[in-house]
């Protein structure tokens, strides 16, 4: 069952320097109980895409220009950003976990006050039930001695613990979809493993869907079932993790996989970097944004506009080049 369908989403920022097409015609979907990874480097639009689905874009300068976000059979973009419908969906049906737990928790409120706000707004619980539920949630995400720690303030928790509090808050109203935006970038790797395993287990237990937004390909390979690779505001490749990691087809995906060092690699392996820099998104040319860095480019790439996603094998690839013939 498809839970969320995003169709042709376009979010533009009208800045003093020109038009930034941060998200330029992105479509994706996520099924119930599925874990999907959205991968890309900074500035590729992966976070803006997620913020747009919840209408959390600051406007101006941001504008959702076009597209549909269909959730539970309704188009969320039909509702006003500050209306009651969107407010009941944010945190209630769709919850989000951010990268920096210290800045996304309110430092002046205790953890209980922050969780109880969610519970009273979305589930209309009374104070006593709220407390019981909050302790239950904190225990579930692995905070030891939750009964005592529930009245602590965010600064009294370590980074990993704060992120656990965020997860508890996100799960407090049994959302159908959890969006984790770089959830483990600010924590150490052993904590990252703990947190991601926790999320994976909770998703299985409650049949929640999970979108992991990250730049770490390893995290996606380990936890996600499907993957979308973004570059300069568009999805350039999508498919199942099995297919994409075994045979990436877009030059950018191929480049990404070749340029990261692997823990299990042969000695003296030389990294193959992607030459050049990620593009400046202001006033982009209509041709493929990866063209200046692409090692496989052909004449057609220079002459025609950025290709749309089309099926290649089991994957969807936005490229004119048949990389299978060109690579090796």
């Amino acid at each position, binding site marked *: 069952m498809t839970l969320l369908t995003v169709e042709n989403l376009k979010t533009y920022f009208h800045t003093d320097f020109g038009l930034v097409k941060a998200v330029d015609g992105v479509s994706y979907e996520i099924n119930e109980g599925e874990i999907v990874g959205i991968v890309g480097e900074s500035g590729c639009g992966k976070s803006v895409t997620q913020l747009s689905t919840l209408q959390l874009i600051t406007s101006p300068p941001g504008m959702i220009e076009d597209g549909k976000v269909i959730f539970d059979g309704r188009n969320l973009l039909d509702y006003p950003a500050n209306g009651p419908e969107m407010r009941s969906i944010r945190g209630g049906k769709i919850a989000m976990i951010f990268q920096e737990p210290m800045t996304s928790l309110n430092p002046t409120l205790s953890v209980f006050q922050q969780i109880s706000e969610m519970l009273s707004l979305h589930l209309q619980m009374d104070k006593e039930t709220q407390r019981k539920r909050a302790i239950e949630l904190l225990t579930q995400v692995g905070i030891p001695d939750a009964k005592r720690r529930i009245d602590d303030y965010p600064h009294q928790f370590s980074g990993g613990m704060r992120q656990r509090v965020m997860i508890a808050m996100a799960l407090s109203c049994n959302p159908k979809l959890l969006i984790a935006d770089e959830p483990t970038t600010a924590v*150490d790797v*052993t904590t990252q493993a703990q947190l991601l395993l926790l999320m994976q287990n909770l998703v299985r237990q409650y049949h929640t869907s999970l979108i992991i937004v990250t730049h770490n390909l390893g995290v996606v390979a380990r936890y996600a079932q499907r993957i979308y690779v973004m570059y300069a505001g568009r999805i350039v490749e999508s498919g199942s993790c099995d297919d994409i990691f075994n045979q990436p087809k877009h030059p950018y995906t191929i480049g990404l996989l070749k340029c990261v060092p692997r823990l299990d690699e042969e000695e003296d392996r030389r990294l193959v970097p992607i030459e050049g820099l*990620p593009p400046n998104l202001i006033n982009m040319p209509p041709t493929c944004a990866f063209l200046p860095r692409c090692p496989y480019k052909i004449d057609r790439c220079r002459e025609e506009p950025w290709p749309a996603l089309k099926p290649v094998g089991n994957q969807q690839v936005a490229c004119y080049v048949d990389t299978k013939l060109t690579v090796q």
Partner: protein
Amino acid sequence: MDNTLLEVKNLKMYFPVTRGLLRRKIAEVKAVDNVSFHVKTGETLGLVGETGCGKTTTGRCILRLYRPTAGQIIFEGREISHLKDRQIRLIRRKMPLIFQDPYGSLDPRQSAGSIVGEPIQFHKLVLNKNDLKERVASLFRMVGLDPNMVNRVPHEFSGGQRQRIGIARALACEPSMIVCDEPISALDVSIQSQIINLLEDLQKQFKGLSYIFIAHDLSVVRHISDRVAVMYLGRIVELTESKKLYDNPLHPYTQALISAVPIPDRRVEKQRQQIILKGEVPSPLSPPSGCHFHPRCPIASPECSEIIPALNDVGDGHEVACIKVQ
């Protein structure tokens, strides 16, 4: 071992924790606690560990940015841990530092050329302005920057280019060793590999250049290093050749650390066993007794909380600090 460039013996760096007007010492943080290792000429030693494990402090002690509490630092045959500031400045010319943050570590009002040229002038390595110009231009070319950009200021460069400026500055005085403190963590994935390759190329070009590469990313450290030291709460728990570290990790912490790093390969990932550690890294203010790792260790026994394990060679230079590993 006559090709030993740097030897660190029983290095300790304790920071006092003070309270009140009189700054009474109430506790101390043992940021680096009895750490010993050596770096050979032309070798890359990786220091890896999680936040607060003391890897950066170790690097800073070697450069004498801190005055170590105890221990010896022998660089090019000379004990430098007690040298005066004036003398140490001349030594630092031989072992510069590359910083993590390419935005904060460059003076925003200085031109790129002057940033790179400053150490050359300070140490009076050139005779006149023309020589300096030439030298800076050749350093720019060496790190893959266009020498025509010498007059630009840092904000006109991208993150990766700024890190190249930092590397050029480090190379300016013909160093024998560069301490790289998280040099690529602030960069984008596709840019990281460009900098790693540059560092590797420079090492080939200047035969005998050594690196101490400090980072939290195990895959990167393993890739670039010849040997890797894994640190936990101020101590080295395992030190070995980088190949052995992945193929045959012996310390339980190293094993957990390696299993926690996901590999971007679906087939490999499906077959890997994950070791999930209990709890979190304890506060360095009150570290556990005995082996610091014992409260989280899957194979700990009662004596682990009593004995401080020494770093022992278990064969072929593979050193482990664990009483369970013989």
